[in-house]
């Protein structure tokens, strides 16, 4: 059995080794994230079958939970870790030749830190530890958003920083309240004793936590940082932010609501919130002419859909939500990567300037097309299965309110289809103006895109690859007693 703590240790160690390597060779820095994440991917793939059999609890320092800092590697954790490291790996490969602006080693270090933070968030079993990893994630992303050192990026990073800090402090307040009530920071421990506390206090704590994590999760109305940050960051970072970072926020919200607080009452509200986020995201995206901003708004919409699905709170609903996390991560990462390179080649972010790229950059355009089709939810791509599952889950609960919700969600899909199809047409069927000298991407840029395209199609055609894992993950979220059992049962 591989020690799951390696998953955190490896990227962390590599991250800090990058400046050291930088002393040896300038060039070597950009390959380090690839190596680190390759290891991570390997570990997580080895872990999957084991974890599905039996979840692992790793105590650090030899103490047993709840008295120590521990890692809880359940199906959900391993699923998210796999996703994070895979997407991270692909983005790292992309970044090898995409990131050209010096100092590149800082970029790679921050990038690895970001991955470390994300991995830590989903693996830790300690709520304060969660906060610490959360801060690692956030701070490295603030820095990365501003990486391009242009006015736009700095401003976005500043906004992101302010809102993120508010969120972090809220999380901290929530944790403090919990600690005050229960005197423990272990999530399973809190969960097992949550019924004994004053519900009002408990709820206030939950409210702070939801708000705090909600900001990272980009739930309406807490998502105002996202369009700016995602659109002005380097595209590889946008891909990571959209593909991974906001999902960790969702993970945080879900973990709080499902596992720790068992707050069933608020779930419908969460679903409603998700729906609102979806609608507003899609509506805002509709009139965008900036391709990255469009993708950013679309991310808001998709996160809304995920939150909506998680708010359904049936096993199928959670399953569908997790599936949507996968399909959105794949598709959106693909879209950002493809769009990033198109922007790089064309030199403009406006959609109109991308006209006619279908002939000049066939593979990239193809990748973009597949990504957007998957996001819209067309078969035979991954997005279809997740969307179908969400609709199925929402109708299956047989509550009238959810019927209304699902109709609204589907209408939002139409809006989404409207703008994505427009972009696809722009790529292929409009005459380009200044695209004569544009050439196709090559090498490290194209590999991750091709892998993403293939995985979107493969998952779309054969979803069974991941359904087992997702079912387990959904089971973990919903079965809080089981979770408590894993962590505390051993003691």
């Amino acid at each position, binding site marked *: 059995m591989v020690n799951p703590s390696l998953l955190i240790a490896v990227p962390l160690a590599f991250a800090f080794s990058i400046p050291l390597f930088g002393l040896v060779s300038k060039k070597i820095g950009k390959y380090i994230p690839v190596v680190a994440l390759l290891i991570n991917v390997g570990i997580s793939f080895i872990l999957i079958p084991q974890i599905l059999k039996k979840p692992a609890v790793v105590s650090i320092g030899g103490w047993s939970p709840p008295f120590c800092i521990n890692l809880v590697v359940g199906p959900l954790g391993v699923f998210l870790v796999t996703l994070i490291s895979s997407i991270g790996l692909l983005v790292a490969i992309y970044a090898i030749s995409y990131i050209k602006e010096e100092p590149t080693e800082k970029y790679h270090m921050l990038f690895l830190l970001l991955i470390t933070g994300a991995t830590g968030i989903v693996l830790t079993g300690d709520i304060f530890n969660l906060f610490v990893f959360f801060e690692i994630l956030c701070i490295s992303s603030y820095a990365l958003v501003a990486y391009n050192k242009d006015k736009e990026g700095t401003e976005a990073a500043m906004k992101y920083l302010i809102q993120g800090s508010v969120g972090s402090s809220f999380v901290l307040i929530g944790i403090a309240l919990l600690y005050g009530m229960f005197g423990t920071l272990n999530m399973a421990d809190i969960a097992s004793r949550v019924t004994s506390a004053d519900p009002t206090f408990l709820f206030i704590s939950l409210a702070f936590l939801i708000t705090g994590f909600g900001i990272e999760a980009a739930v309406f109305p807490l998502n105002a940082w996202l369009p700016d940050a995602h659109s002005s960051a380097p595209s590889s970072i946008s891909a990571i932010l959209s593909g991974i970072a906001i999902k960790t926020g969702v993970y945080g919200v879900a973990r709080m609501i499902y596992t720790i607080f068992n707050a069933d009452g608020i779930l419908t*509200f969460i679903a409603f919130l998700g729906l609102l986020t979806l609608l507003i995201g899609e509506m805002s995206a509709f*009139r965008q002419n900036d391709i990255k901003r469009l993708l950013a708004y679309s991310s808001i919409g998709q996160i809304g859909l995920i939150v909506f699905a998680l708010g359904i709170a049936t096993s199928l609903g959670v399953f569908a939500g997790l599936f949507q996390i996968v399909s959105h991560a794949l598709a959106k990462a693909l879209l950002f990567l493809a769009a990033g390179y198109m922007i790089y080649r064309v030199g403009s972010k406006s959609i109109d300037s991308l006209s006619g790229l279908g002939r000049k950059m066939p593979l990239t355009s193809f990748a973009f097309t597949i990504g957007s089709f998957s996001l819209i939810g067309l078969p035979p791509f991954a997005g279809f299965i997740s969307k179908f599952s969400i609709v199925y889950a929402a109708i299956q609960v047989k509550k009238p309110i959810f019927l209304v919700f699902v109709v609204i969600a589907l209408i939002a899909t139409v809006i989404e289809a409207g703008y994505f199809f427009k972009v696809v047409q722009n790529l292929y069927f409009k005459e380009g103006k200044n695209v004569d000298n544009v050439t196709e991407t090559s090498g490290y840029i194209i590999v991750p895109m091709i892998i993403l395209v293939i995985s979107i199609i493969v998952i779309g055609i054969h979803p069974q690859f991941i359904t087992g894992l997702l079912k387990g993950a959904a089971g973990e979220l919903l079965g809080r007693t089981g979770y408590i059992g894993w962590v505390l049962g051993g003691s």
Partner: protein
Amino acid sequence: MQLITILIVAFLGAGIVYLIGKISGKARDILAVLASLIVVILVSLAYNQKIYTSFYPLPFLNLSLTLRIDPLSWFFAIAVAGIGFLSILFSLEYMKHYQKLDFYYSMMLFVNAGMLGVVLSADFLSLYIFWEIMSWSTYLLISYKGGKAVGAGLKYIVMSTVGSIAMLFAIVSLYTSYGTLEFSSLASLLQTASSGYILFLLIMFIIGFGIKNAIWPLHTWLPDAHAEAVSPFSAVLSGILVRIGIYGFVLVMYSIVGLNLLHKLGYGLLNFNYILCWIGAISIIIGTFIALLQDDDKRLLAWHAIGQGGYMILGISFGTTLGIAGGIFHTLNHCIYIALLFLVTGAVEYRTGGVRDLNQLGGLIKKMPVTFIGGLIGISGLIGIPLTNGFVSKWLIYKTLIMEKHPFLAFVALIGTWGTILSVYKFLHNIFLGQLPEKYKDVKEVPWAMRLPMIILTSVIILFGILPGIPLNVISGIERSFGIKPLSTIIFGMPREIGELNIINILAAIVVAGVFIYLIFSLSTRSRRVNQYDNYAAGSFIPKDKYQYSVRFYDPVYRIIGPYLRDVVDDFYYWLVEKSKSFFQGVRQIYTGNVNTYALYILLFLAFLIITKIGWGLW
């Protein structure tokens, strides 16, 4: 296995054609034709078989995707395969001057494969999957030409998405209620469902299938899409793709819901069938009469595609033996003649350099006789002139309407036919008849690869017109499979107990009379052959290029009915889109760009959560 082979051939063919195209253009063309031909052969081999296979399990949803072939699906499958093959054959020459041909051929095959998948599916999930594949590949093909086509494609795909989500909603709700999506099990399970639920299902499916089928008021994507697509694809689009919607109607209404349940929906005149009928009738009027105002030949045909869709709806919505037979038969007929007509416009475009404006053409009969005959037979089928296929199906539909005591609907259908006559004669006249403009002096007949599909379709129109028993036999098989009393047919028409129609007698009478008159005609003094310039022009020699009456061909009628014939629905949709655009813009203003506001949002959200808890104890 056979069905899976068909689909595999169809889908793989599309993929391979694209890859081969990167190597050799010629090989790609041949392969595309071969792939579509093999599909035709495979489908025709499946005639009269009953196969049911499950080809792909989806265990996490507890479902498996299944395929089946029964009379209904075979009937549509052969139409899909046939039209697909002919239009690919036609494309060989027609598309020569276009670019991105790999993409084109691959997508043509892909659309075909998608349609085949739709008609061969045995459960709703596979139907939906293939449906969506068909939709987006169609969207890519419509947009293929660029320019105006882009807007058309977008309009199409957005409306199509609306239809899809309606359908998805219905499908999922079926699945949650009954735990299965197979047609056969649903058919029996639904018999106990409440009327309200059935009505909900039907409405959802009608939105879904109706948008594809372009029934009023869901038709507005069609004229743009048909006019802007390349002609061979317009043939597929209008001929069969749109009519997959009819397949859906028939499937849901008769194969799954069934007649018994349909009759229970509604009270008196306000029942489901009757309302559907009127939707069909409105489609007829809107379609055929707006077609009258068109000057673009493909747009004209596109509006007819809407109008003729109304006839099919009229036929199938009654649920009588005659009506369903008429509706389904008309679907087949429509797919043949409209495909032919689109190919004809394609041929004309090909030779005249892409001229679609009816006001600029004329006199091409002398130069393109085969194309002309195709056009003539095509419009005869569209009108329903006796001895062409459209006649028999229209006869069945009218007969149903009158027998079911719906004279007003019958009136609409008949007057729609007159609108059709007017507009298609204009189509034929302005392209082929009258004076040949000087600039088309050197136009030649189209090459054989384009002639052949037209000849085949023309002869099928005549064949089915004279021997309607052949397709009607298959159709009665379909009706038998629905559990409806099957239409009894004879090869030349209808048996006496159904109605008085015997094509062979009509044919014989016309032929004998024609021959007799021809004899008299040739016995009398011979005439002298003159060219088009030797013509009466009130004593002067004719002014060249100005001696043609084609612009605003029916001007007095335009002036009378023109003001009423606006596509109000389309205007409404545009209005809706404009309004929602500005609304979306307003929504976007939430993100003010001011970080203070954002912080306020966060605080308000937190406050909201806490206040609702403490104040009202909501959670």
